[in-house]
C-alpha cells in the first residue's frame, strides 16, 4: 500500500515542484529523494510480517481497507522493491540525460512516478477492475513520455502510434473483462473467484480469456502483437525507451502471470498450447529480426521482444519455479538493459559501428557494457544466466511441449550473434568515430555502472538473494 500511495503523492509533488524549482537539477534530487523514501517504506512493509510475527496486527504506514481489491504479499512487495531499485539506478544513471530531453524536467519525473504507481497496482491487483486501472495508469504517462521530444517528428509519430495501438489493446482488454464477468456464473470481478465450470471452460469466459491474453501479449510486446515495439522504442527519447523496455515491461509480465495464474490457472492445460505458440513466435521474430539491425537502439528493441519470449516461458510453465524465475528474470533483464541503454545514450552514433574502439577510449564503459551484454546473452556468472536457467527448469518441470524448450535455447544461441556484434565492435575493432565523441562522463556515472555490473554478477552467483524474499 505504501508504494501505491506514496508514488502517486510524490508524482503530484514533482508536478507542482516544477513551478518552484529554480535549477533543472533540483528536480532530479527531489525525484531521487522521493524514490528512496518510497523504496524504504515499501521494504518496511515487506519485512513487517516477520518483525511483528507474534502480533496479529499488520502495521503499515497507510492501512486502508481496500476490500481485498488489492492483495499484498511478499511476492508482490518484493517485486515492487526490485522495480524501485531498478528505477533508482535508472534515475541515477540517466538523470542528466532526462534533463536534456526538454524543459519540463519535473513533469517527466512526475510522469515516471505515476507509471510506478501503475506498476505497483499491476503487481498487487486482485480484481479485474484493479488490473485495468493498474495497466492504464502505467500506460497513459508512457504515451506522453514517448512524445516528450516535441520537436522531433519521429518522437511524435511514435507517441501517436503507441497511443492508438495502446488504446486499441485497452479496448480489447475491457471487452475481455466484460466477457469473463458476464460469462461466469459467480458474477465476480475477483480474479480467484471466477467460475470456470467443470471440465471445459464456458465459451463466453473462453472468449474473454483469449481477449485478455491478446491485451496482455500486446502490453509485453509478444508476437504477433509486437509491431508497435520497434517503432515506439526507436522513436521515443532514448532515456524513456530504457524505462519502457525494462520496468514497464517487467510489470506487464507480473500482471500477466498473476492474472493467468490466479484467474485461469485451473484450466492451464486448455490455453497452454496457445501460449506455447505465442512464445515460439515471439522468440523467433525477436531474435531473427534483431540480427539484421544496424542501429543498436532498434536492435535492443527487438532484443527486448526476444527477451519477452523467454519470459513468456514462465507463463507457459506456470509453477513456483516459473514465478521465482520471472522475478529474477525481470531484475536481471532490467538491470542489464538499463545499463546498456545508459551507455548507448552517451554515444554520438547509435549504429553498431559507432561502438568501434570504445574499449580504448573508455575502458570502464567497455567492460561494463560487456557484462551487460553477456548477461543478456545468458553466460554463466551473470544474472542473465540464472534467469534463463530458472526459466528452463520451470518449462521442463511443467512436463509438456519439450520442443519449446529446445527452440528457446536455439533462439538464445542466435541472440549471442547480435549481442556479440556489439562486443566485437567495442573490443576488437578500431574506430575513429568514438574518438570524435565529446565524452560527458562523470566518475560517479562510471562507479554506478560498476555497481550495476557487480550486482549482476552477484545475482549470477547467488540468485537466492532475490528468490528467498519471495517466500518470506
Amino acid at each position, binding site marked *: 500500500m505504501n508504494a501505491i500511495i506514496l508514488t502517486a503523492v510524490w508524482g503530484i509533488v514533482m508536478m507542482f515542484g516544477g513551478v518552484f524549482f529554480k535549477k533543472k537539477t533540483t528536480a532530479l534530487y527531489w525525484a531521487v529523494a522521493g524514490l528512496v523514501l518510497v523504496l524504504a517504506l515499501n521494504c518496511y512493509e515487506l519485512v513487517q510480517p516477520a518483525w511483528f510475527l507474534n502480533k496479529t496486527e499488520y502495521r503499515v504506514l497507510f492501512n486502508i481497507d481496500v476490500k481485498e481489491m488489492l492483495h499484498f504479499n511478499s511476492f508482490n512487495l518484493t517485486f515492487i522493491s526490485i522495480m524501485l531499485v531498478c528505477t533508482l539506478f535508472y534515475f541515477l544513471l540517466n538523470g542528466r540525460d532526462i534533463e536534456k530531453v526538454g524543459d519540463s524536467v519535473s513533469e517527466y519525473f512526475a510522469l515516471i512516478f505515476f507509471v510506478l504507481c501503475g506498476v505497483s497496482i499491476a503487481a498487487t491487483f486482485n480484481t479485474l477492475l484493479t488490473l485495468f486501472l493498474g495497466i492504464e495508469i502505467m500506460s497513459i504517462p508512457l504515451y506522453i513520455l514517448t512524445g516528450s521530444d516535441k520537436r522531433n517528428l519521429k518522437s511524435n509519430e511514435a507517441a501517436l502510434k503507441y497511443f492508438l495501438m495502446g488504446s486499441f489493446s485497452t479496448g480489447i482488454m475491457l471487452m475481455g473483462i466484460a466477457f469473463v464477468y458476464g460469462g461466469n456464473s459467480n458474477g465476480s470481478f475477483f480474479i480467484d473467484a471466477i467460475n470456470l465450470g467443470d471440465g471445459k471452460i464456458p465459451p463466453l469466459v473462453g472468449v474473454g480469456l483469449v481477449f485478455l491474453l491478446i491485451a496482455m501479449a500486446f502490453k509485453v510486446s509478444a508476437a504477433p502483437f509486437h509491431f508497435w515495439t520497434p517503432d515506439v522504442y526507436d522513436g521515443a527519447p532514448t532515456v524513456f525507451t530504457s524505462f519502457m523496455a525494462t520496468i514497464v515491461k517487467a510489470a506487464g509480465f507480473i500482471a500477466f502471470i498473476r492474472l493467468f495464474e490466479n484467474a485461469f490457472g485451473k484450466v492451464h492445460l486448455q490455453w497452454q498450447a496457445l501460449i506455447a505458440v505465442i512464445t515460439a513466435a515471439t522468440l523467433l521474430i525477436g531474435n531473427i529480426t534483431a540480427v539484421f539491425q544496424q542501429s543498436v537502439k532498434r536492435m535492443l528493441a527487438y532484443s527486448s521482444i526476444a527477451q519477452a519470449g523467454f519470459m513468456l516461458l514462465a507463463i507457459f510453465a506456470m509453477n513456483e519455479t516459473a514465478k521465482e524465475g520471472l522475478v529474477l528474470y525481470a531484475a536481471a533483464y532490467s538491470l542489464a538493459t538499463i545499463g546498456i541503454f545508459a551507455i548507448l545514450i552517451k554515444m554520438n552514433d547509435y549504429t553498431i559501428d559507432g561502438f568501434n574502439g570504445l574499449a580504448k577510449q573508455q575502458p570502464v564503459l567497455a567492460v561494463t557494457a560487456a557484462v551487460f551484454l553477456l548477461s543478456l546473452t545468458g553466460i554463466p556468472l551473470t544474472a542473465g*544466466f540464472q534467469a534463463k536457467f530458472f526459466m528452463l527448469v520451470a518449462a521442463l518441470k511443467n512436463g509438456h511441449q519439450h520442443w519449446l524448450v529446445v527452440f528457446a535455447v536455439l533462439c538464445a544461441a542466435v541472440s549471442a550473434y547480435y549481442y556479440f556484434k556489439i562486443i566485437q565492435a567495442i573490443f*576488437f575493432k578500431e574506430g575513429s568515430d568514438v574518438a570524435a565523441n565529446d565524452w560527458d562522463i562523470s566518475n560517479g556515472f562510471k562507479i554506478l555502472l560498476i555497481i550495476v555490473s557487480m550486482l549482476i554478477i552477484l545475482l549470477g552467483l547467488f540468485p537466492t538473494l532475490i528468490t528467498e524474499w519471495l517466500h518470506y
Partner: protein
Amino acid sequence: MFGNSITIPHLLIFIPVIAGLVTFFIKSESGAKTWSLLAAFITLGVSAASLVYSKNNELNGLTFNYEWLKHIGASFAVSLDGTGRLLTFLTAVSFPIIFIATYKNSYKSSNVFYGLMLLSQAGLMGVFVASDALLFYFFWELALVPVYFLCSRWGGERRIQATFKFFVYTFAGSLLMLIGIIYVYLHTSPVLDPNTHAIVVEHSFSMSYFHGVLLSPSQQNWLFWLFFIAFAVKMPIFPFHTWQPDTYEQSPTAVTMVLSGVMVKMGLFGVIRWILPVFPQAVIKFDNVVIGLSVVGMIYASLIAIKQDDLKRFAAYSSIAHIGLMCAAIFTAKSIALEGVMVQMFNHGINIIGLWIVIGLIEKQLGVRKISQLGGVAHRAPVLTIMLVVIAFANIALPLTNAFVGEFMMFTGLFQFNIWYTVFAGISIILAAVYTLNMVQKVFFGENNDLTASMTDISLNEKFILVVVLVLIFFVGVYPQPFFDLTKDSIALLLTRFK
C-alpha cells in the same frame, strides 16, 4: 593437511582466478609475465601435491561440498578422482610450458592477455573438478569466455569471424546440454535428510544423484544426443569440427596451445564423466554411430592434413584425427581402451603443445608458416630439428614415445570391439606417418631458400622448454605405470555401470 574449508580443488580454481584478476592491474609487461608464470608454477605445485596425496585420507583434502542454491539442490561440490587429477595435472603442466615458450612474444596490453589466460585456466580446472552438474556447466561456459576474448583480440587477420564461429558452435551445443542437465535433474531422486529421512530437496544436481538416476531407454536415447553434441563440438568430432581449423589458425599461438592441448580434453572428459555413467544404455545403442563418425573423421582429417600447406592448419587436422581415435576408444567401453584414453589425453596435450611450440618458433623467426615456402631449416637450426623430429615421432606414435602406449591400448580395445573399425582406424595411423614425415621433410630438410637461410637456432629458454616436453614424452613412453595407477579406480567404477 588441509582443513575442511580449503581443499586442493579450491586451490586449483582460486589460485588462477585471483592471480588472473591481479594481473589485470599490473601495468608493466614483464611484471605481468613474471607474475602469471609464478602463479602457474604455484598451481603446478598444488597439482603435483594432489598426485602424491596419500590415499588414506583421500576424502579429506580432495572433496568439498557447499550448498550453493539450496532450494534447487545445486551445490558448489568439487572433488578430485583419478581422472580429475590427471587432467588437472595436464592443465597445470601446460600453462607454465606455454608461458615460458611464448615468453618472448610481446602483446598489446599484455596484462589483460595474461589475466585472461589465467582465468581460462581457472575455468578448465573447474570443469575437471566439478562434481555437480550445474557447476560443471558453469565452468564449461566460463572456460570459453576468456578464450573467446583472447582469440578475438590477439588473433590473426580473420580472427573475429573465426572465433565467433567457434563461440556460436560451442554455445549452441552447451545450451542443448543445459536442457539435458535440467531434464536429468528433474528425474533424480529426492535428497533425504540422513537422520529424519524427510525430503530436503526434490531433486539434486549432484554427480552421485546423476549417476544413480533411472531413465528409460527412450529417454536416454535423446538425452544422449543433447549431451553428446555439446561434447562433440568441443572435441571436435566429424562433422562438428569445422570451427576448429579456422580457430587454431587465427588464434595467437599461446591460445592455440590452450585450445588444442587442454580445452579439447574437456569434451573427452565430459563423455567419460557424464555420458558413460548416466546413459549407459544409450552408449551401447549408439556406440557404432559414434565410433563410425570418429573413424570417418580420423581418415578424413588425415587426408586433409596431407594436403595442408599452412602449418597451423596442418596441426589442427592432425589433432582432429588423434581426438577421433580417443573418442572411438571411449565408446568401446572396454577397460583397456579407457586406460589408453586416459594416458593418451595427457600425452596428446603434451605432444600437440610441443608441435605448436616448434611451429610458433618458426613463424616468429621467419614470419611465414606455409610449408611450401620453407625448407632446409635443419641446416640452420639443428637443435630445433632434433626436437621436432622426436615430437613428430610421438605424433605418429612410435614405440618409446608416449603416444605409442596410449594408442596401442586404444587399438587393443577397439580390436576387441570390432575388427573392421580397427582396420580403418589403422589406416589413419599410416596416413599420420605420411603427413607428419612429409611435413618434416619439406620444412626441415632439403635446400635452404632465401627465407630460411636467415634462420638461427633456438635460444636457451626455448631449448629448456622443448627438453621438458621431450622428457615428458620419453618418460611416459617408457614408464606409463603411474598414470594407470592413477586412473584405474575411476575406470573400474565407470565400467560397473555397463555390467
